[in-house]
């Protein structure tokens, strides 16, 4: 392993470990939240952020695939959707755990809970769609078009639909309509560190995943020939 890679991995490990410690020992609990439940924010928000980032990345990679037909972009889109789903599920689970403490129920059909489930369904269908197309080139092309469509639908799914539904128990998003991070200073520091750590972790997983997909494809091509 290259020294720069080792250094990068060390930095990722350090930032996530430090964020876990600081989340419990340095950041104060938020006001108007039951007990220590607000500490889950330092994990829930980064998971939701990374999930959104992954889906945007998948959409952009898909558009680039459609423009260039370079297989690497298809691998990037596929990897990003897979990782986005994992982080999306983690965001949903951490949100549900918090909801159990605050709202006395894991699932309340809150518009924000529903919208993340729908977004996950949209991207789960991406894999279902891929497996339903036999011809390799058509599979890549059609899946890319579908993921690119996600870029159009996602803003409506995440921002407009939950607001229309009206009622929500979910706290105001960290990054709100005024594009301001409205949390206490120490909480903001930990949140930023945690978000950076998990984003870097996602980037590392994404690079590994793309390499793995390239190797798997090369193996399949070799076995076919």
């Amino acid at each position, binding site marked *: 392993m290259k020294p720069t890679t080792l250094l990068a991995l060390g930095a990722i490990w350090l930032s996530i470990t430090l964020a876990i410690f600081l989340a419990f020992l340095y950041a104060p609990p938020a006001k108007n939240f039951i007990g220590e439940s607000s500490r889950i924010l330092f994990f829930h928000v980064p998971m939701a952020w990374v999930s959104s980032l992954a889906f945007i990345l998948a959409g952009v990679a898909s558009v680039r695939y*459609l423009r260039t037909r370079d297989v690497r972009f298809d691998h990037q889109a596929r990897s990003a959707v897979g990782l986005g789903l994992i982080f999306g599920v983690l965001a949903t689970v951490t949100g549900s755990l918090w909801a159990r403490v605050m709202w006395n129920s894991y699932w309340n059909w809150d518009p924000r809970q529903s919208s993340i489930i*729908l*977004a996950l*369904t*949209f991207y789960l*269908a991406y894999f*279902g*769609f891929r497996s*339903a*197309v*036999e011809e390799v*080139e*058509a599979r890549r*092309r*059609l899946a*890319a*078009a*579908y993921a*690119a*469509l996600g870029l*159009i*639908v996602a803003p*409506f*799914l995440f921002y*407009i*639909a939950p607001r*229309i*539904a*009206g009622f929500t128990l979910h706290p105001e998003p960290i990054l709100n309509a005024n594009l301001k991070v409205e949390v206490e200073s120490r909480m903001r520091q930990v949140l930023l560190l945690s978000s950076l750590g998990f984003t870097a972790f996602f980037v590392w997983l994404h690079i590994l995943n793309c390499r793995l997909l390239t190797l798997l494809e090369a193996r399949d091509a070799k076995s076919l020939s």
Partner: protein
Amino acid sequence: MSSRSDFLDFLARSGAVLAKDWRTELRSRYALNSLALFAFSTLVTVSMALGPVGSSPLAQPLLPVILWLILLFAATAGLPRTFVGEEETHTAIALRLAGPPEAVFAGKLGFALSLTFALEILVVPLFLAMTDLSPKDPGLFVATLAACGFGLAAGSTLVAAMVAQARGKGTLFAVLLLPMLVPLLVMAVALTRAAVSGEPPVVEITQVLLYDGMVTIGGFLLFPAVWNP
């Protein structure tokens, strides 16, 4: 001058696709029959299941939800035919040669749009009669049906083109389409509820038009990649 003749050529080609689709449809009446029968049987089933509750004030806030679910599921039953039929009868190749993808998409969108509006003309008066629902703001009600019907048709056209080249087309169409149409469904229900109650809507119709515009533009941009191998 050249751009004007290009535009006229585009209109002529998309019009030819639309006319061809209607001619084929009127011969077989597959999509029309499946849309109409699906919508009618769902309507009757819902009315029977609701019973007298359907006409009570208690059910009023729920009726717009039921109306849009009927329209949505009926659309998923009939609209995939626009492209699936072309692949099954192996006429897609001829259609690819007949015109640019954008003209094909415009023609198919026109066909899906006319089918959706036909579905709404059939289902909505029946639904209103069966549930004793009378919109206090008929203008908003009609505008909602038109704008949301357009979004339904635009989304369905693009997804139908995608699934036509895959296996398990019927199931896949619903799986891909429903998460995509949920924002539209939420806006449609909110607007219909406002039109029925006469209260100011929580969503502007311009937001639906924005959705329609984005999905249509996205459709025109993505369709050449979906259509041409």
